């Protein structure tokens, strides 16, 4: 077995020191009836590296990949070009095979990266502080809702219909058990986001208002207006960003009055990966920092007076507070945070702006081309790199038919909102700097054939 260094001679010598007759004797505490005499029945035996690679490569070949096809999917997971150096650097063994930096003297690499990451996220979001990442955007969104509950000592959250439906479902699942009250609504296939409806739902019992920016249909809500309405009633504004590249062109949510900003960091550095692992971004006002979930890295000095970094404010966490912890989360998404941070460092502010401009421009070009397809209506007035169109037939069927023609044409609202008849003609289309003129032409011609 290529991963196990002990040989039979070693094992015999070690058993002698231990005073046991065999390895099996070391499992004497396991009741005899639960102890298997040999390998678990019904499973194959070990395999060579070549055999495993061959098996996995065969399975991989059964997928149609984003790189193989004209690709227009978004809805919470975005395709952007990731520079080769990002994947090279995160595979440095000292990053890849390190643990949570509980021994700061020999983990300054990870800790400094986290400190840089927190600063990058805070600047991107326009918040005072940010944490060292959570599992993903959807769980970060729920954590923000519960944090707002702790801050305001209220338990009602008003969610815009523009919040990603998986995020809403995640919150709904959790709220069933915690007793938080959620006000939710479906999105509508109209040009404007539901700012006014959300504002109308805010009352003196509202802990938080949750708005996605841009929203699930790509529309850009008026955050300043919603922030003002929320704060007038003593509620916190939580802004969800599922496409952080948008902030290369859009004003930061914090600058528009958001109290807590959460997001999905996947679109920078991480890649699509069929949905995970991704990374949750979390920023907020400084005055709420002790109510914040997740790990935090802070600057300090060592015994020689040199600058160094440590995990800090850990008394909020489960390993100390146990049932009184701010969250039960133990793991963050360290390696994805590293990838995000490296990609953002390679871009810098100007590079991020350039990438955002290209994404937006490709989206406009795609929308202009689609608008000429008979039967297709563009829904949005405002959008960054993602917009909704209405098709003359069930968009789910159209998406499948497009896939049969080798085009990955978008995300149907029917997939996201099963059972919502009014949305069944809706299709979300996304572009990025990866989208070429040929891709747009292929989408248009395939769609014309499918709708004909």
């Amino acid at each position, binding site marked *: 077995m290529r991963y196990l260094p002990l040989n039979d001679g070693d*094992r015999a010598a070690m058993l002698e020191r231990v005073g046991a007759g065999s390895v099996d004797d070391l499992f004497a505490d396991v009741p005899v009836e639960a102890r298997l005499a040999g390998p678990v029945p019904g499973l194959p035996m070990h395999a060579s590296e070549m055999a495993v690679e061959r098996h996995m490569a065969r399975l991989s070949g059964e997928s149609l990949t984003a790189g193989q096809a004209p690709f227009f999917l978004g809805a919470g997971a975005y395709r952007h070009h990731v520079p080769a150096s990002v994947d090279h650097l995160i595979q440095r063994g000292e990053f890849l095979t390190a643990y949570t930096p509980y021994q700061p003297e020999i983990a300054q690499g990870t800790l400094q990266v986290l400190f840089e990451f927190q600063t990058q996220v805070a600047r991107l979001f326009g918040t005072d502080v940010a944490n060292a990442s959570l599992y993903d955007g959807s769980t970060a969104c729920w954590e923000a809702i519960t944090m707002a509950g702790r801050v305001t000592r209220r338990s009602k959250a008003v969610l815009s219909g523009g919040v990603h439906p998986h995020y809403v479902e995640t919150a709904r699942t959790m709220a069933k058990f915690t007793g938080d009250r959620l006000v939710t609504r479906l999105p509508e296939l109209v040009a404007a986001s539901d700012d006014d409806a959300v504002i109308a739902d805010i009352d003196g019992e509202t802990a938080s208002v949750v708005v996605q920016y841009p929203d699930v249909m790509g529309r850009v809500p008026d955050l300043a207006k919603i922030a003002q309405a929320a704060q007038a009633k003593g509620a916190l504004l939580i802004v969800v960003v599922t496409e952080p590249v948008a902030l290369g062109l859009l004003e930061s949510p914090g600058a528009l009055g958001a109290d807590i900003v959460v997001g999905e960091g996947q679109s920078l550095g991480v890649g699509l990966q069929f949905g995970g692992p991704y990374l949750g971004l979390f920023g907020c006002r400084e005055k709420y920092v002790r109510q914040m979930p997740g790990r935090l890295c802070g600057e300090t000095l060592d015994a020689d007076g040199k600058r160094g970094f440590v995990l800090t404010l850990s008394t909020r966490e489960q*390993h100390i507070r146990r049932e009184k912890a701010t969250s039960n989360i133990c793991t963050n998404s360290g390696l994805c945070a590293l990838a995000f941070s490296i990609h953002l460092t390679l871009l810098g502010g100007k590079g991020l702006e350039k990438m955002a401009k290209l994404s937006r421009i490709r989206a406009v070009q795609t929308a202009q081309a689609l608008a000429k397809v008979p039967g297709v209506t563009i829904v949005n007035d405002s959008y960054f790199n993602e917009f909704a169109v209405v098709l003359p037939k069930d968009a789910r069927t159209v998406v499948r038919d497009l896939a049969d023609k080798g085009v990955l044409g978008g995300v149907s609202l029917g997939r996201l909102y099963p059972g919502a008849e009014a949305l069944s003609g809706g299709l979300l289309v996304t572009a990025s700097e990866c989208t070429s003129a040929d891709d747009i032409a292929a989408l248009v011609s395939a769609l014309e054939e499918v709708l004909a």
Partner: protein
Amino acid sequence: MNEINPSGWRPSISASGVAAPSIETFTDNRALQLEEALIFEIGNLEHCGVDFDDDDLDETLLGGLPSRRSAPVDLPGLTEPEAVRHYTRLSRQNYAIDLGLFPLGSCTMKHNPRLDEKVARMPGFADVHPLQPQSTVQGALKVMNELAQWLITLTGMHGVAMTPKAGAHGELCGLLCIRAALEARGDAREVILVPESAHGTNPATAAFAGYRVENIPATADGRVDVAALTARLGPDVAGVMITNPNTCGLFERDLKTISDAVHAAGGFVYCDGANFNAIVGRVRPGDLGVDAMHINLHKTFSTPHGGGGPGSGPVVLSEALAPFGPLPFTARQADGSVRLVEEETAAEEGHAQAFGRMCAFHGQMGMYTRALAYILSHGADGLRQVSGDAVLNANYVLRSLDDVLDAPFGAAGPCMHEALFSDDGFAEGFSTLDLAKGLIDEGFHPMTVYFPLVVHGAMLVEPTETESKRSLDQFIGAMRSLAERARAGDEALKSAPHLAPRRRLDETLAARKPKLVWKG
């Protein structure tokens, strides 16, 4: 030490025998030990390490976008060579399994096979969008389904929820299944029993799921007090959370008895599977009456820890709980294809009672591929060898050190995958922390310290199956030397580490006036 180094060669013997003078450098670097500034101190807004295909950038198409920012985000950029150097220099300030033994008890730091990294990057898994039509992602869905089948068979359970994103998320999933099952039979219960030796995530999770937590004491031999537990059972107890092997590194011999009693009282048994690596391939938790157990793929199946994540925590479920597991999940169809079962089709697959969704999309695909490659490489026979070698290595460490370090449960028989020691016997004023920091100077990562809480000055050593006998002997030699220094009261130990990139850091300063972002 001599028995592992018969040649007598030591890297520290210098030709002259003269001690090096204390040298200060202009840069603060120490040869290969390189200092590195923050990106905010070396980069700037104009620098960029990415070139774009922007020949046809038509800025007129940017019109009509509301909430435009007036200036780029204030983020420093670096060109590629600067960035590669920055992160490479930082990486060298980290300890890692790739560098040496990492005996962090209950965290399971074992070798991360590079084949697993290679397969995770195969485009059919890494370059597919979670919402592509199912016919276009069969490769990815088949990996999820194949791993699910392995987990079910290895644990002897009935079903598995794949989506939880880490161990604590898995615990929550298991408790929500229990709650959903109880509510489905109209049986509201309020209490979850947790042994006092449990990891902090257990009570945190139970509280998060809306339960009141009650602690169950341990016996003198480091196990759950069965009498106390069964005495507390009743119509208000929803279930128990038990870690097996437990956080003291011992197998809970009476788990089956406990399960039977809990079931008889109408409750469910949650097993924290953080230590499943000690018994994988030898014991199926399903045979012990467990109803739900999360498996940390980053522990038992060696997906990389990555400096603190991402993890992945699938939860195997008994027949009683499986129908309540979260969405989505995979189901193999008669034609050999695999279906992703989401909200819309849950009822068709017998999951109308699924408790909901725990996260966006379908879980940690990148961890599934790695774990499956690890599992296929080892096979049923190799996994059995994994737990055997892990337990043998831990017992070897225990019996090689129990004459110089107090082993609180050493007399109780063999340990499982980790050896537990205490600071009993150290000189006045010397603590577990001092020994741990001394290990850093010896070139090792410290063991887990002050956990479990039930042992004073606990030191939890988990060598894993990754270590060779030679590697263990070197570690044991270092530990014996440190234990003797701690017992003798060697003052130099109290200020260790002396040789790491940083000395002890001031955590009080960090917590009193938190500096969480760079402000210049």
